[in-house]
């Protein structure tokens, strides 16, 4: 059953056009011209209860704008949104009770308060029943190791600590859905791993629907079965992560160190994409030529010192998709 329903969603922003020079600045004081930017351009998708979805795209693709409309922060220009049956911007306060939000860049907590007081305050704001609050706190303190900084004011927390506090705060009132906007940004490897395992746990144990935006593809790889990829305000891909790998992972890269330069290497399906000294990066398509064929062809013609094959990284795949800027239909 779908818990989030988005249909033909649009959001446009009017941006005042800057005019050059002093004369331009004066002119725009009286006569201002606007550029209309479509941040979200006809997006539709639906998410089932209990799903964990990666919502990704480059900067300015419209990720945050979508999340902000789903959480009720922004009012859409047009289109339909239903979050567990509610229209978020019309029923902000009711919607707030069923969702949890973490913005990686900004804390949801009270800056000057000790962390525990922020929690107490949220308990009051969300009217969390006392026993529920106690159970959640016991659990979060254990999994997220909150005890080490529970009495420290939020402004003095390290980024990793703050993020842990923030995610605990977002889950205190047992939301059905949680929006995580870059929850691992700026975290070190250990902290990232910890955050991921926590997200996985709340999804599996509590059936919380998770919508996650991130720039870190390994977040997606480790957490999400499904990925919605957007660019320029449009959905480029919506489906399983495995499928995208299969379809776009056909090209691989062979790295060879040779004794000499490649003078002219023309072979169907192979392309020299980079060269540093004697090290060469060859992109090849699995369908046209196998790795062993390629290697034997190279060693026939050149003296090979070293050789390695790079697996397609999801990040590279995604970049390829953006660069081609084609909407992809895969089934």
């Amino acid at each position, binding site marked *: 059953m779908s818990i989030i329903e988005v249909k033909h969603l649009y959001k446009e922003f009017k941006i005042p056009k800057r005019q050059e020079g002093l004369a331009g600045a004066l002119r725009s004081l009286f006569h201002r011209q606007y550029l209309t930017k479509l941040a979200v351009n006809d997006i539709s998708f639906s998410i089932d209860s209990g799903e964990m979805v990666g919502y990704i795209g480059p900067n300015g693709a419209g990720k*945050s704008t979508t999340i902000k409309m789903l959480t009720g*922060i*922004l009012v859409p220009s047009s289109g339909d949104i239903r979050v567990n049956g509610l229209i978020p911007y019309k029923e902000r306060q009711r919607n*707030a*009770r069923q*969702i949890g939000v973490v913005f990686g860049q900004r804390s949801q907590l009270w800056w000057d308060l000790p962390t525990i007081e922020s929690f107490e*305050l949220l308990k*009051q*704001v969300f009217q969390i029943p006392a026993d529920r609050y106690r159970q959640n706190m016991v659990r979060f303190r254990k999994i997220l190791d909150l005890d080490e900084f529970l009495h420290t004011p939020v402004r003095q927390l390290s980024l990793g600590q703050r993020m842990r506090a923030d995610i605990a705060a977002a889950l205190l009132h047992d939301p059905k859905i949680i929006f995580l906007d870059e929850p691992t940004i700026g975290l070190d490897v250990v902290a990232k791993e910890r955050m991921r395992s926590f997200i996985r746990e709340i999804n599996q144990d509590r059936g919380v629907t998770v919508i996650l935006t991130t720039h870190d593809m390994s977040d997606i790889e480790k957490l999400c079965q499904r990925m919605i990829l957007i660019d320029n305000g449009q959905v480029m891909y919506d489906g399983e992560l495995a499928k995208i790998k299969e379809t776009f992972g056909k090209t691989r890269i062979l790295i060879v160190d040779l004794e000499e330069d490649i003078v002219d290497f023309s072979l169907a399906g192979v392309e020299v994409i980079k060269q540093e000294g004697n090290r060469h990066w060859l992109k090849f398509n699995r369908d046209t030529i196998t790795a062993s064929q390629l290697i034997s062809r190279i060693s026939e013609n050149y003296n090979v010192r070293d050789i390695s094959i790079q697996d397609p990284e999801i990040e590279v795949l995604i970049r390829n998709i953006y660069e081609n800027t084609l909407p992809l239909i895969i089934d």
Partner: protein
Amino acid sequence: MFESCLRGLKFYFYMVGVSIKTQLQYRYAFVMNILGWAMTYAGTAITMWVMLYSFQTIRGWMFWELLFLFGLSVLSWSICIIFFFHFRNMDEYIVEGTFDRFLVRPIHPFLHVVALKFDVGAFGQLLFSIVALIIAYVQLGLNWQFSQWLIFLGAVIGGTLIQGGMLVLISGVAFWTTRSERLFWTLMWPAKNLMNYPLTIFPRVIQLLVTFVLPFAFVNFLPALLLLGKTKESFAPYWGFFTLPVGIIFFTICLKFWTIGLNHYKSAGS
């Protein structure tokens, strides 16, 4: 409904406690803030006195009457500061993204903004205004009946709502323009200075403007006419009765404007 109001109030008072605690953390700044404001206003009062020393009266207002007029406006302004002064920073809350989080909580965002600060620094002005009013009361030999005390109370509450409404109105502009603090300084300060003097010394246009459009005249001038029994003015004294209803209506309109603005909120950044 009642239950949600109660929850809102509980939240508000808790946040007031937090805000006071935070401000008390910086003790030196706290004391200087209170002292500084008291001194600033005392300075203005002294300037008035010097002026009146050579002119004797301004349009039939003598110094003690002016002090009353001034004290009344500072009194409601200082109460207004305690609750609403931080609305002038609305654009900052928007630009820094603080405002976003108010929209994902089951409490009205307006209450969230009100609860952000309880400005203890305003006690300096409050202190000054009470002292000034007492001195003026004694010097003018006033002896109010209960009904006049009610009018005074209405003037203080209504005046707070009118000026608070202005702050809310200006802050609401930020939903469209993202910038609003300038507007505060260009609109609010001149109006505040205007209120230090009898309205009748200003051109007719301004008199009409601050009576019917942005009702600053109801904050201190009109109630002062009534309370000081000044009948030889171009305004009939009974205008002074209306400060409280005008305040309530004006504040409601401003709040409505603010909530409309909310739908135009363009959250900043990503």
